[in-house]
């Protein structure tokens, strides 16, 4: 077979059109086989591009090589090369993110606005995330669309709505004579029943979009029905209680105060570890501190942590260093590089190197 080549084989076909070779992984190949639509996305024009299927997000990298790969087109027993590649695009799995830039935070229902309208659809368009992942992440980020505008619900608004849902459900359960088994019943509910009860009993009327978002975040649906995720509920109330108390609080008082802020008859187990990464304890006192306020740089983060407290128990420091421990090695081994790790009795204690 005779081989021809255009004189300057180029990936660029015209001023705007060009060709790329892409290494396909099984998910993308399957999508192609099924003729499913794919999307090329990016958070902004300067961010890295991703290729998304219906359920997965892949970061696109360019892998250069020194070989000469010719793309040929066969015609009448001869073949002509019309594009030459010195690189391939490689797909790597990546954490999907939602781009919340420019979205207002809604603290009160009365603050709905018509300015800067951004729909949920356009948030999705501008986020390097697949449709399925977007549906899963949206409630986690308290993201809702109200009257055609997207908002991030303030945590206090989420808490108030959650309280109102829990109160409505619990009142209904009490009235039906199930007072003794409320916590068990909260693990096995019918979703439509919950929505009806909330609609009927809710003291403040929250739009259905908010109720559904809050339910999606704090409950899990399975074959057995809808179950409230007590750990997440406790975390929300606990973090807000710590945030609103500027003063240090005694550890013993904290659990009691936390119970008081929760709806009547709602008695989940309260464990401090549910709030990991949001508090510091010292000499029997507890105060709010968010892990997200620390530096992303490992060395800076460790030094900031030792400024807060000279000596940490291993389990206390763990939630604050999980983010920088990217290779997910054991925390005590990971910390050896940055700090002194020693055993005192049954406990492992971490302190600064110098």
């Amino acid at each position: 077979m005779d081989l021809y080549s255009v004189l300057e084989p180029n990936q660029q076909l015209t001023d705007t059109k060009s060709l790329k070779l892409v290494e396909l992984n099984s998910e993308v190949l399957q999508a192609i086989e099924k003729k499913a639509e794919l999307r090329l996305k990016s958070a902004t024009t300067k961010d890295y591009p991703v290729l998304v299927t219906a359920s997965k997000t892949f970061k696109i990298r360019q892998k250069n090589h020194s070989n000469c790969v010719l793309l040929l087109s066969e015609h009448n027993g001869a073949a002509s090369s019309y594009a030459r590649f010195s690189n391939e695009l490689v797909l790597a799995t990546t954490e999907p993110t939602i781009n919340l830039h420019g979205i207002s935070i809604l603290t009160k229902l009365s603050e709905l606005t018509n300015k800067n309208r951004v729909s949920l659809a356009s948030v999705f368009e501008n986020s390097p995330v697949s449709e399925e992942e977007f549906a899963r992440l949206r409630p986690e980020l308290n993201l809702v669309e109200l009257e055609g505008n997207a908002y991030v619900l303030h945590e206090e608004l989420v808490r108030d709505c959650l309280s109102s849902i829990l109160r409505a459900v619990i009142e209904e359960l009490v009235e039906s004579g199930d007072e003794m088994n409320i916590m068990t019943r909260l693990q096995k509910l019918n979703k439509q029943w919950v929505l009806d009860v909330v609609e009927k009993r809710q003291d403040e009327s929250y739009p259905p979009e908010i109720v559904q978002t809050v339910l999606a975040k704090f409950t899990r649906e399975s074959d057995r029905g809808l179950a409230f995720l007590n750990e997440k509920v406790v975390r929300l109330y606990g973090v807000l209680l710590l945030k609103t108390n500027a003063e240090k609080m005694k550890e013993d008082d904290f659990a009691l105060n936390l119970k008081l802020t929760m709806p009547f008859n709602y008695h989940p187990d309260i464990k401090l570890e549910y709030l990991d990464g949001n508090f510091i304890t010292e000499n029997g006192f507890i105060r709010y501190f968010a892990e997200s306020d620390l530096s992303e740089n490992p060395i800076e983060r460790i030094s900031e942590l030792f400024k807060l407290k000279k000596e940490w128990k291993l389990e206390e420091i763990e939630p604050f260093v999980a983010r920088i421990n990217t290779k997910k090695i054991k925390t005590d081994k990971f910390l050896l590089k940055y700090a002194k790790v020693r055993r005192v009795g049954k406990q492992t204690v971490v302190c600064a190197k110098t």
Partner: protein
Amino acid sequence: MPSRRVSTEKASDSVNAPTQPVPDDLPSIVCTKWGSMLLEIQGELNLPPSKPQGLNEQEEKLFTKFAYPDLVADSELLVRDAVKFGRLEIERDMKRATLYVSTSQRLVGTVETIDPPLGLLKTDVDEAGKCEFVDVKSQTRGRWCRAGDVIDSTNVKRGRIGDRDLARANLTEHMYIRRSGSCLLCTDIVTSSDPP
């Protein structure tokens, strides 16, 4: 808007197409349903930037006009000058292949499957333009694939195809069955003065 739909219709048709035997009057080849084929050479292939002037009749025959396939050109008519740079022969067993470049170089390679499969993505920066996977060269069961092919020849001695040093090879008809979906890998350097 940093989000573009990528159509997969053409690539899907290609990847789902069954292997087709070719008519006996055509030489052996490995390509996709859309006629795409990949040839990988270790090194470079130097071609003249434009068609040289003052060619004799025989040299003139090596040049032709190439119209880009519809697969990538859509309905636009893209025509460029093309030059014959060599000849490719795939052996009957579809395992080994030889690439003759110019009159003095023979590159021996093998037909290999592509793993992972490679997709050919056409992008268009124009807002109204269409992004699509137009073809897939895939690895599949064994050496013979349903669709897709890479012809890969490594260790190619840098064969410069200069203005006058053009390939002069005669096309001999080979009666191989065309198998789509394999690729060709040339691993040994064989320089030979024997004309093919």
